[in-house]
């Protein structure tokens, strides 16, 4: 079953081993706690805004390789983007994770997360970080859950 190789691609394993942007931001503009109650993935997202751009994005958390890698890839990608660009990206990533859309060139490295489509029980692991991002940017809630 080669689907597993699609899920645990080298980029994912790398970002799990050495997550980028791991840590907190003091005096963050937005802080959101996310939890995946089904499996215990937990993450806290910190954002520093620079006008309408994301100046800095960091995260802390524990969880499976997919959730850690997704948080790492997400923070890496959105740093420097505008809020609007990031919210668009959220929609695109969500469509990709649920199989509604195939990854395109715009996804770049994020396309590695598409492997999760063949593993429905793991979609929430990948999407946790992105729901936290959306919540942080729309200031809905400061605690979110994938339920």
């Amino acid at each position: 079953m080669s689907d597993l190789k699609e899920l645990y691609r080298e980029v994912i394993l790398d970002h799990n081993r050495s997550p980028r942007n791991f840590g907190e931001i003091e005096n963050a503009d937005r802080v959101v706690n996310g939890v995946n109650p089904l499996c215990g993935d937990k993450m806290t997202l910190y954002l520093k805004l620079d006008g309408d751009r994301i100046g800095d994005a960091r995260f802390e958390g524990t969880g499976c390789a997919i959730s850690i890698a997704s948080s790492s890839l997400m923070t890496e990608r959105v740093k420097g983007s505008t809020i609007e660009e990031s919210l668009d990206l959220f929609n695109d990533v969500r469509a990709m994770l649920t199989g509604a859309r195939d990854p395109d060139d715009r996804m770049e490295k994020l396309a590695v997360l598409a492997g999760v489509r063949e593993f429905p029980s793991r979609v929430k692991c990948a999407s946790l970080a992105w729901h936290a991002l959306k919540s942080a940017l729309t200031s809905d809630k400061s605690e979110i859950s994938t339920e």
Partner: protein
Amino acid sequence: MSLEARSRPARKVDAEVARLREDFPALAQKIGGKPLAYLDSAASAQCPRSVLDAIFEQQGMNHANVHRGVHYLAERATAAYEAARDKVAAFVNASSREEIVFTRGTTESINLVAASLGGSLLKAGDEILVSGMEHHSNIVPWQLIAARTGARLVPVPITPAGELDLEAFERALCDKTRIVALTHVSNALGTVNPVRALTEKAQAAGALVVLDGAQAVPHFPVDVRDIGCDFYAFSGHKMFAGTGIGALYGRAALLDRMPPYQGGGEMILTVAFDSSTYNVLPYKFEAGTPNVTGAVALGAAIDYLSRLDREAVAAYENGLLAYATDRLLAVPALRIIGTARAKVGVASFVIDGIHAHDLGTIVNDESVAIRTGHHCAMPVMDFFGVAATARASLALYNNEEDVDRLILGLERARKLFK
């Protein structure tokens, strides 16, 4: 049930129990070209052909609504349903059939007791004792009724080995303790609790005892009168009977005094708009059309287990648990969570650097089914300081090959995450 009986069962018994696997059609299937190694029976067990046949026959040929029909099929369905109740009563050695209430499962059974008994008995300041190893279904119903009545939930801690802290249990019992709710066997840890002794102590302190037997009944005979408990709850799908059915044993004297749990048809004698009167036991607690097919399936599962030499099966399972434990402990960076002296075939474990969820997904690729997560026992996870564990659970139809395939899958995970 002791891990200490590490001597391997006689070859003859092995072969006989091994043949039991053939009774379970689900186990013959291949997934992705690899034969299924089902190590998740603690979550839900597979059904033997005799249970499947009973379901087909009941739903196909004997189906009608029960208890009030005067036609032939209704009489057949009612007889089948009530015969199943008699089987359950005998299975747990209840004093009478009035003491067996059919429910949807252990969770509903405990909710019934919490709402009905708890609701009528508990006052502000009363205490409900639970253990630190309980499944959420033996915690939350008590929280709900405690909130309604002003009673207090008192958790009794467990030891690092995953056993109940017996001294803490005795210290926690006091004149405010009204209800003691305990699991017979822990689903997360496999621990078998000394429920006879615990029941004696609890009742001596004036408390009523409610036991969660979901993980016990698949593995060894349970005698509720020998244990002495006031209530005993269990589920069909954990004991090879399929989902949607379970039972509650309750002492007749207690059930008699308890108010109804759900209202509706079947549980009444007369209904008028100004008042209604309730049916006798056990029907007072069975509102609406029951899961007749489920009850029949449960009866068929009881028949299946009763035909086995249960002692031989338990010895086989213990031997298999010992084998699995040895093989798991040989995996580098693997730690077993739950090392009680008395266990059923449950092995919860963590591997350093690999999250349980990833372990589960990778071994699934080898067609090995285990469960990962908090196992509806978050307090247990918190106690051991882990977010989740991977859990392999053994039933009478598992064998060493299943365990070997799990180990291979774990090795694959370790290589991937190096």
